[in-house]
């Protein structure tokens, strides 16, 4: 009997372990296509490829892949072929850090696109910086990542190897506040966040600007992103008399939240940042999402001339998933790495230098090109110089752009 029980435990644990490993290896590197001749350079991609945020993560992966393929097709850098290797961070800082270590260990990797979440980026920055491996995020908006923890008073860039093509929440939050107060004429806001790096930061910069404009915060709440029951919060929103809700967080919680707020009888719009700007928001929120607002970085990709080619190529490449909120930025992030590689290779008589990683990181600072999302270049903190933002509103089950603008202090 003892023997049998031992076998049973082992079998059960083995079954558990096997399924776990299966998910680990599932989404690894199905990258570039033709590697015929020349030097192969791998661009790492780190994003949530599974889990609640995978709709955004897969868009990042596909768009980076498209950039690599386009560079190969055009023979953009003589003698170099690019391919991508994508790792799944499941939106978890711990997985992100492991992935960062994996990328650093692979000598073929000379640049990384990603991650999606600011909290994940925090865990990866130092790993990359120690290896002088350049990281370009298409989606992180937390201000501390580039300007240090005391960014409001004293800007200090913590890591020289970190860049991003997305604007920060230092701009996004106030931009939303100005729109809601000045244009949408909302004066009483109920602020909710998920206590994560991104959500809490965004809610903070929003609140500050909204109060400065003369608006009133009639209530605040922090939700637990692991639960689905927001009924107690929804009841509070209703009885607070707010005329708008601002949510700092992401769509997996925002969708159910807007639904439960409306169901509780508060017929007021929910507004949020780029974290809720995803089609999945409407799937989760249903009809309740109609009239809700979100802001997102840049102008809508479809309206830019520079992006038409990207959209056409993306469709032609036949990716299964849409490019989602960060497609254009991911393409530009990958392309920035390609531009930096090009510069380094050309300066070194057409070959990769020995300290390619450090050289590429250095070259990134001066990269400048016309990308999908407009002019792509970086300021002294590694932030994008493109400070454009857009307000979106849910109409007929999709996010419709209301107005684009540049935030000015």
């Amino acid at each position, binding site marked *: 009997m003892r023997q049998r029980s031992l076998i049973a435990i082992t079998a059960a644990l083995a079954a558990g372990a096997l399924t776990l490993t299966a998910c680990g290896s599932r989404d690894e590197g199905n990258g570039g296509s033709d590697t015929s001749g020349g030097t192969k350079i791998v661009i790492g991609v780190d994003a949530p490829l599974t889990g609640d945020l995978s709709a955004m993560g897969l868009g990042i992966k596909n768009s980076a892949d498209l950039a690599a393929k386009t560079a190969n097709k055009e023979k953009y850098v003589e003698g170099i072929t690019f391919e991508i290797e994508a790792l799944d961070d499941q939106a978890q800082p711990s997985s992100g850090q492991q992935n960062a270590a994996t990328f650093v260990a692979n000598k073929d990797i000379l640049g990384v696109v990603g991650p999606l979440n600011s909290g994940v980026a925090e865990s990866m920055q130092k790993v990359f910086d120690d290896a002088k491996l350049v990281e370009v995020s298409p989606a992180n908006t937390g201000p501390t990542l580039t300007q240090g923890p005391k960014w409001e008073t004293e800007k200090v860039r913590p890591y020289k190897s970190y860049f991003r093509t997305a604007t920060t929440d230092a701009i996004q939050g106030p931009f939303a506040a100005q729109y809601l107060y000045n244009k949408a004429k909302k004066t009483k806001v109920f602020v909710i966040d998920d206590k994560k790096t991104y959500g809490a930061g965004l809610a903070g910069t929003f609140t500050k600007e909204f109060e400065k404009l003369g608006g009133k915060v009639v209530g605040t709440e922090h939700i637990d992103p692991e639960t*689905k029951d927001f009924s*107690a919060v929804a009841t509070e929103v209703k009885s607070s008399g707010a005329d708008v809700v601002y949510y700092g967080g992401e769509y997996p919680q925002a969708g159910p939240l807007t639904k439960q707020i409306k169901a509780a009888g508060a017929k007021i719009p929910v507004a949020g940042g780029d974290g809720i700007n995803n089609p999945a928001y409407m799937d989760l929120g249903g009809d309740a999402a109609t009239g809700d607002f979100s802001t997102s970085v840049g102008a809508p990709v479809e309206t830019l001339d520079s992006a038409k080619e990207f959209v056409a190529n993306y469709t032609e490449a036949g990716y299964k998933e849409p490019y989602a909120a960060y497609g254009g930025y991911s393409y530009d992030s990958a392309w920035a790495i390609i531009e930096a590689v090009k510069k380094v290779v050309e300066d070194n008589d057409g070959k990769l230098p020995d300290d390619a990683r450090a050289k590429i990181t250095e070259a990134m600072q001066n990269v400048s090109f016309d990308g999908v999302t407009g002019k792509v270049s970086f300021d002294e903190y590694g932030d994008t110089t493109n400070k454009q933002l857009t307000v979106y509103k849910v109409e007929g089950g999709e996010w419709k752009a209301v107005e684009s603008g540049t935030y000015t202090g």
Partner: protein
Amino acid sequence: MNELPQQLVNGLLLGSMYGLVAIGYTMVYGIVQLINFAHGEIFMLGGFGAITVYLYVLPDGTTLWVALPLMLIGGIIVAVLAAVGAERLAYRPLRTAPRLAPLITAIGLSLALQQAVWAWYPDAKESVNFPQIDGGPFEIGNVTIQTGDIFLLVAAPISMAVLAYFVMKTRTGRGMQATAQDPDTAKLMGINTDRIIVVAFALGAAFAAVGAVAYGLKYGQVQFRMGFILGLKAFTAAVLGGIGNIYGAMLGGVALGLAEALSTAYISDIPGMDQFGSQSWANVWAFALLILVLLVRPQGLLGERVADRA
């Protein structure tokens, strides 16, 4: 506006759901002294069983009045099969092993089931949308009740009544009581204890499946991860009510749900407690309540058996 009645209803609804799942923990513990940590995943499988019937078995556009009973049956079948299978493969071989062994199998099984759904169910990597009952919410005075919650409001008391009848009045039910009191003597009296144990697992799974359908209707989606936190809460509810006591499971669930809703709404109103009152603190207060109750009554609110057995 006075929001207290609404918050009480919120807590009651949440608590009834905990209670439905807690019944499974409490019955299995009462009979075999096993904390079935895979029960949360049985609950999750119930939800996926129900949604499978809706998405892949029924023709598109079936009205919910026809679909819902069939989904409920589908969910119950899947959950019961999984629970009975788990009992046969993972727990029965270990019945005479030290008590820690089946506990570890349970945790392994819970991970395996979660990952299995994640890996093989189409689109389960994100939330899977659950059909919703149409029609506006009902307003009773200050209180709003969602259409999706009506199922829960009806299902929870009916489930309790059915369970009470089963345990008190039927032969198998009395067999369960006997086995719970003393398995060896029960066996000598001619009770097939193996069958009784299977029945306990199956019943618990059926109630968990009812809870899962209620979850789907309430939140509009099911996820492969939904069993973990909810299972933990339900287990807490079972301990709070007195593990081994089926009425205690329901009472513990309701107490936990109310603690969560009321702490979210009111703790921040207490001067100096501002930062401890948000919904992200609800779990802290729920567990504080558990510790408090266990300090005063180690056997739980209604329980009597746990003190000498655990």
